[in-house]
């Protein structure tokens, strides 16, 4: 089945979209400001003869002209972390303050969690959770190499998350970077769509809705919750937002994303969604030479 053909009506330039999905992704790294600054990283790369290009919309991202950023001094020293461009969006949109309590509900393998930690100036409490025990090892390895000291790692089902170990009632902010069908990772994993089925979309959407509901409930009034996926499927994106808007005390807010995006869609497959889902952003691979992505931001009310 040609899964991506479903999205022809949603995309401005369908041929460019399909062509982009067949191209490999650029190699990007994020400067880890917990251990280094951009100047030190650039000086070390220059000394080693590693070539790089700036990423115009984010000073902390660099595009490497090497296939092996892991074999450089800055990587060994934990000054940089390999991170796809769109993977830096949830942190940028949530933008947590230093000293706050932040929940990353689905944190492994830790790219977004370590980005949150650096935005918090490594100060406060970042609770990095994942329900998959096998994925905690890479999560911990990444947080350790990057020198993160403000994180607590937990292993719970995020849908029924208990804050009991921490002795407080609510987080100031939360990120739900939900498990998803991963359609937007096709440039990195050419077999990403092999197991795709409508049945899988139904079941994963139930999980996504459950985690997002719990995140809204576990965040204080006035706090922010970001929802993101790396998929195009409206069943996993706008439809999830729509269900949560109906039952939880929250509203979607406008977000500024520094790249070219489309608004969320209000109709799909005979269904209509709450009009405010337009405040979410869809990121198509051909528009900024990235993976595919979806991101939305809620404010918790009452």
């Amino acid at each position, binding site marked *: 089945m040609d899964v991506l053909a479903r999205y022809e009506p949603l995309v401005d330039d369908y041929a460019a979209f399909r062509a982009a999905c067949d191209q490999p992704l650029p190699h990007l790294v994020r400067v880890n400001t917990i251990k280094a600054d951009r100047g030190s990283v650039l000086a070390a790369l220059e000394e080693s003869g590693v070539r790089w290009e700036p990423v115009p919309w984010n000073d902390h991202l660099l595009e490497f002209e090497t296939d092996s950023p892991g074999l450089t001094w800055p990587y*060994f020293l934990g000054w940089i972390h390999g991170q796809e461009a769109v993977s830096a969006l949830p942190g940028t949109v949530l933008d947590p303050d230093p000293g706050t309590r932040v929940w990353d509900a689905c944190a492994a393998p830790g790219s977004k969690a370590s980005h949150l930690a650096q935005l918090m100036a490594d100060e406060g409490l970042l609770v990095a959770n994942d329900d998959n025990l096998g994925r905690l090892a890479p999560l911990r390895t990444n947080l350790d190499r990057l020198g993160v000291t*403000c994180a607590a790692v937990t292993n719970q089902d995020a849908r029924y998350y208990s804050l009991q170990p921490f002795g407080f009632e609510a987080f100031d902010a939360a990120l739900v970077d939900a498990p998803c069908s991963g359609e937007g990772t096709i440039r990195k994993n050419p077999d990403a769509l092999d197991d795709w089925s409508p049945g899988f979309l139904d079941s994963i959407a139930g999980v996504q809705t459950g985690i997002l509901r719990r995140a809204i409930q576990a965040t204080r009034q006035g706090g922010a919750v970001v929802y993101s996926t790396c998929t195009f499927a409206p069943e996993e994106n706008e439809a999830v937002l729509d269900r949560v808007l109906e039952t939880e005390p929250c509203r979607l807010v406008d977000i500024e994303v520094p790249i070219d995006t489309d608004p969320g869609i209000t109709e799909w497959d005979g269904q209509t969604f709450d009009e405010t889902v337009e405040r979410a952003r869809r990121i198509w691979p051909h528009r900024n030479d990235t993976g595919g992505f979806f991101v939305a931001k809620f404010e918790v009310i009452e």
Partner: protein
Amino acid sequence: MTTPEHKRFDRLPASDAERDNPKQATRVEVLEWWETRFGIPPATFKEYTFWEKGTGKVWLLHGEVPSPCPIEALGLHCLRTRQEHWKPTTNAVQRFGQAATRNRIHLDLRQAKVFVEGQDVEIEWDGDWGYLIATTDIADRSVVLGVGLYTYGELKSQIPKGRRVAIE
């Protein structure tokens, strides 16, 4: 039901007066050790709390949570206190070792590459034997690579297997 010790984090007692378990290190001892061994001032860790999970595995957290805390990981694993000679972790010295003024051994770039591959480095050293902070110069700046164990004219690399790398 109480959580078994190896599955929970207990905050280190502040000092000897508050210590029930004689095997447990205290906060005062940990701060004194960093200062005595490496010259890292105690003020460096003013905003950090220290925790133990299992015996002699010390972690540091930039923040506070209730003790005991039954979770998977808390902050950064920084120190092993089980043996007579305490051993700092690679990740802790990379994060805090820049402030070290003692027991800090400089490697040239060739030695540094050997060291981060996990191999031992033959090198003269007229200071203390034991765990040293290994540094090198990258782009004219002294940077901390990790921990080495110095004995008999040799610095044994303590870079953990998963962190070893052959720099190109």
